[in-house]
């Protein structure tokens, strides 16, 4: 039996290839995601351990968040005097204090040098090379104020050299420096894409706002003193609130932070890989269904010769298993290429991640193989069961067509499945909670299965309507193509279903994006009072406080207010808050204080969003224990509530309260309102005049701000569509596959048509017509489902400020047109095969 299976497979290499292809692509996406994230994680892991290689222990302020996922920059500083204490500990060979923070270089053309996500670092130069990974490539170390060393990566990219003057932005006023050296990180040019400016310690403390303090004190032990001994000795002399940890722990923490930050990306990519596999499953299902139908006589012969039902069923499952295994192995290999492709794709959309080497973990191999195998085998089971029911008598009759349960039963089951899926989606949307997203995804998958079950009922009439123009366009070829699309509704529907999934998701995000864009404009009108929005142009929201300070002095502006944002914890949950100036905030935002009074902010109290206030059952006057990384738990009184404002989060404190509890003091946006009677051009000029000294910011008026928000949404839409593209490509291969199998099945019919005078061109046109109908059918169904999905999701997000549903009609029509074109492309190969059939052989074939 095994022998028969293998023979069967290798007798049809093309069939094997076409079937396997859907799985290959899906598996390669899974493998690629793993390879990419593992490689990135590994890169960071190596990086952090390299940075800390020479250090044995580090002294730093304890984090109010504990050490689980503390962010280094959020810690308080350690008084400089601790360094002297540490130096006196026996066993300390070298100890040096270090500070780090925000410092952004400005290139020669006056533009701020940005990164695609990596920080722009300012650090103190560590004198002892044992304690630092920095290695000078040229020049010398910074010795006094006005001198800076930059990283080799930035120097190369922006043509900076020793002796050049460079402007640097800080959280305070920007300053000019002379480059005295260029440094690498060991042998690397930069640190994971970050830019670096290194100053002497005193200058670093001054420009980074940490005078008389260090972020950490790095210590190296004398030989013979173990790291743990050293750690315990140092721990004994430290003042309260200061801790000592091994450098190993520091590196592990940093690597873990990156991993956590990236885990979202990995999960997101896996979701798209899952979608591809899901679509691939549809194709396998359809292919095996057709294959079993075409092999009815062959399988019946096996039964007639004494094979049991079980053996017939196993022979089909075994074929699926071989195909799945083969496809998974190929997919795994391709995954490495996909990882590179994904990285370029993310880079194109502004997410630049460093990689070095390629990391293929055993987990990647195992998961990829299992996933590919399981998807293929599961998708073949229905066909295998049908094969097992073929009676031996069928061997003597003609080849059958696919059969399934009655359409009535199918309709009932389909409706039930679709409704269950929709219910799961709605529950995920409206019930909220941590399981909401998985539930939404699962519900969507179930809906797709329901739609796939129901679509054969609609595919006949729909194919008739979609194909209506074909007879006029292509004559008898059009008539026949249309008839062929209608002759086997199950097959047409199953083939189209794969495309339905991809396009439904594309339509969903399109509706979502259009709705967000439209709502975002509303949000600006509804909640923003400022005329100008000054935001950072790079990835990191880092605006010097100096900007707001200087803008405040401009007489053309009535009010200037900066906003800060930060994280805090309560009962183990991380939340965000915003900081703002109570005196001016009400003038730049339409802030509606609904209970209590805004003056509470100035007394160090807290305002809470109305809805959040109710959800968390706060009371006015209640003391909330808020935990900050820098200052630990602070008791803060609830002063009042404000009506929902989508430009603010759920919690609002004064800038003074913010400053007291957070280390790095940078604004993420500065809002300005023109003074009454000042012409827009004049007020804008006033803002621009200050902003030009801060090359990392952009000034936008309300209209420009709306437009920028739109662009951001478009960017996300573009990325998601690109990631869905693979599932759409897989679906197109499904069409190729079905058409190729249909051509094979209709060999005699094609021979007859050719014999009675149909030209090759007409044969191709006929196949093309069928292909276009299938593609458009899948697209139309998908877009319909997607619009419903989008509508449901927008409704579920209504309390997030997405208030109205917008269906981007033009875009959807464009998708249908693209689907039709894709149908033409998918038909190329099967059409050529059909046209090339030898007429005589075709007529005489069985």
């Amino acid at each position, binding site marked *: 039996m095994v022998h028969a299976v293998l023979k069967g497979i290798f007798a049809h290499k093309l069939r094997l290839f076409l079937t396997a292809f859907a799985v290959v692509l899906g598996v390669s996406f899974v493998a690629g995601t793993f390879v990419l994230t593992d490689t990135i994680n590994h890169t960071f892991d190596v990086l952090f351990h390299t940075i800390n290689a020479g250090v044995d222990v580090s002294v730093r302020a304890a984090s109010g968040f504990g050490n689980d996922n503390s962010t280094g920059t959020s810690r308080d500083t350690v008084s400089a005097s601790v360094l002297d204490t540490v130096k006196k500990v026996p066993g300390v060979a070298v100890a040096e204090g270090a500070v780090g923070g925000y410092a952004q270089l400005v290139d020669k053309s006056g533009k701020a040098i940005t990164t695609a996500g990596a920080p722009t670092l300012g650090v103190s130069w560590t004198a002892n090379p044992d304690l630092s990974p920095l290695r000078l490539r040229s020049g010398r170390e910074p010795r006094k104020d006005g001198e800076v060393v930059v990283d080799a990566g930035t120097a190369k990219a922006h043509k900076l050299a020793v002796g050049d003057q460079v402007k640097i932005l800080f959280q305070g006023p920007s300053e000019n420096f002379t480059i005295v050296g260029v440094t690498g990180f060991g042998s690397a040019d930069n640190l994971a894409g970050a830019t670096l400016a290194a100053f002497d310690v005193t200058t670093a403390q001054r420009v980074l706002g940490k005078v008389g303090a260090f972020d950490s004190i790095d210590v190296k032990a004398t030989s013979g003193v173990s790291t743990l001994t050293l750690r315990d000795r140092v721990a004994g002399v430290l003042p309260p609130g200061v801790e000592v940890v091994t450098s190993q722990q520091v590196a592990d923490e940093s690597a873990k932070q990156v991993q956590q930050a990236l885990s979202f990306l990995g999960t997101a990519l896996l979701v798209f890989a899952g979608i591809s596999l899901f679509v691939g499953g549809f194709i396998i299902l359809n292919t095996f269904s057709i294959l079993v139908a075409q092999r009815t006589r062959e399988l019946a012969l096996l039964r007639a010769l004494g094979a049991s039902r079980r053996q017939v069923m196993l022979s089909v499952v075994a074929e699926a298993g071989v195909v799945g295994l083969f496809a998974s192995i190929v997919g795994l290999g391709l995954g490495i290429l996909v990882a590179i492709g994904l990285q370029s794709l993310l880079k194109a959309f502004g997410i630049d991640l460093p990689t070095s080497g390629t990391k293929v973990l055993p987990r990647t191999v195992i998961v990829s193989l299992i996933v590919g195998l399981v998807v293929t085998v599961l998708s073949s089971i229905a066909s295998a069961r049908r094969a097992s029911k073929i009676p031996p008598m069928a061997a003597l009759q003609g080849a059958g067509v696919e059969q399934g349960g009655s359409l009535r039963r199918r309709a009932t089951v389909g409706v039930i499945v679709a409704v269950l899926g929709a219910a799961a989606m709605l529950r995920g949307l409206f019930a909220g909670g941590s399981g909401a997203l998985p539930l939404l995804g699962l519900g969507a998958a179930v809906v797709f299965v329901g739609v796939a079950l129901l679509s054969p009922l609609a595919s006949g009439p729909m194919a008739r309507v979609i194909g209506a123009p074909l007879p006029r366009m292509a*004559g008898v070829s059009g008539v026949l193509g249309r008839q062929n699309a209608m002759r086997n509704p199950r097959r047409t529907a199953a083939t189209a279903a794969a495309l339905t999934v991809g396009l439904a998701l594309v339509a969903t995000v399109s509706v979502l994006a259009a709705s967000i864009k439209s709502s975002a404009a509303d949000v600006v009108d509804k909640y923003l009072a400022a005329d100008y929005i000054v935001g950072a142009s790079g990835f990191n929201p880092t605006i010097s406080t100096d900007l707001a300070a200087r803008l405040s002095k401009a007489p053309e502006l009535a009010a200037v207010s900066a906003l800060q944002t930060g994280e805090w914890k309560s009962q183990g949950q991380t939340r965000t808050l915003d900081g703002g100036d109570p005196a001016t905030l009400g003038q730049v935002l339409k802030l509606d204080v609904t209970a209590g009074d805004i003056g509470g902010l100035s007394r160090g109290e807290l305002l809470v969003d109305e809805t959040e206030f109710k959800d968390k059952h706060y009371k006015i006057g209640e003391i909330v224990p808020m935990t900050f990384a820098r200052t630990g738990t602070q008791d803060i009184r609830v002063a009042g509530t404000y009506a929902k404002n989508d430009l603010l989060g759920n919690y609002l404190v004064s800038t003074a309260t913010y400053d007291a509890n957070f280390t790095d003091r940078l604004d993420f946006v500065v809002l300005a309102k023109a003074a009454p009677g000042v012409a827009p051009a004049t007020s804008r000029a006033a803002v621009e005049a200050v902003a030009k000294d801060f090359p990392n910011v952009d000034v936008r008026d309300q209209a420009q701000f709306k437009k920028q928000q739109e662009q951001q949404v478009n960017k996300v839409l573009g990325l998601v569509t690109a990631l869905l593209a693979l599932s759409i490509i897989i679906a197109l291969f499904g069409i190729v596959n079905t058409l190729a199998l249909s051509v094979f099945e209709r060999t005699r019919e094609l021979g007859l048509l050719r*014999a009675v*005078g149909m030209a*090759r061109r007409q044969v191709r046109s006929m196949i093309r017509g069928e292909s276009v109908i299938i593609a458009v059918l899948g697209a139309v169904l998908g877009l319909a489902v997607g619009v419903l999905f989008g509508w449901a999701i927008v409704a579920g997000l209504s309390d997030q400020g997405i208030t109205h549903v917008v269906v981007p009609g033009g875009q959807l029509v464009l998708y249908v047109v693209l689907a039709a074109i894709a149908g033409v492309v998918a038909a190329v190969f099967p059409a050529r095969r059909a046209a090339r059939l030898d007429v005589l052989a075709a007529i005489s074939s069985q």
Partner: protein
Amino acid sequence: MSTISPDTPASVPGSTRPMARGVDLVKVYGEGDATVRALDGVTVGFAPGQFSAIMGPSGSGKSTLMHCMAGLDSITSGQVYVGDVELSSLNDKELTRLRRDKIGFIFQAYNLVPTLSAAENITLPMDIAGRTPDRAWVDQLIDTVGLRPRLSHRPSELSGGQQQRVAAARALASRPDIVFADEPTGNLDSRASAEVLGFLRKSVAEFAQTVVMVTHDPVAASYAERVVFLADGRIVDEMTGPTADRVLDRMKHFGG
């Protein structure tokens, strides 16, 4: 009787040129030891308005002869003419057009496109050509084959005999120069066979259609005006005004 000169093909009445003729046809399949000479020097002509049958035992080359005459298969050497056109000079496109416009086909089975109705199947060659069918002619054909009540039915809703009559009507619908029928009654019972063969004979008698039929059934052959006997790739005999008994008798001689 077995030597027929190419210039004066046997049984062509008067000076009428044959509708289709083959001259010294040789068809070789395979190479080396596996070589099979399916046609071994056949010269034959089919006169206008004549109903001819090609008979012979299995492997005699009768189907190959028909396929080569109809432009479905290529010959190894010799010439095939349909009207004045020599087929070996035609490329695939021209051959396709020739089949479409000059030749009608009836096959043993699977003669109809399953997605088209009987009426659509009948006009298929004209639809392929993009020509408007001659309505009166098609109507006449439909009435002759007696299919008017079944016109909107799909092939799967027709009996085997009805399907074959649709195929016959289709073969004649475009007024081809010549109709080739390959075992048209091979899958039919005797009553359905009689209907189809009766129609073919009628088409010759009433419409002066030229028909060439390959068959191994002496009864079917008896409907023809002339029978050409093939054995081992050669024409071995010929008979005009055949009856089933005479054909059967003759066949017995080759059988041994």
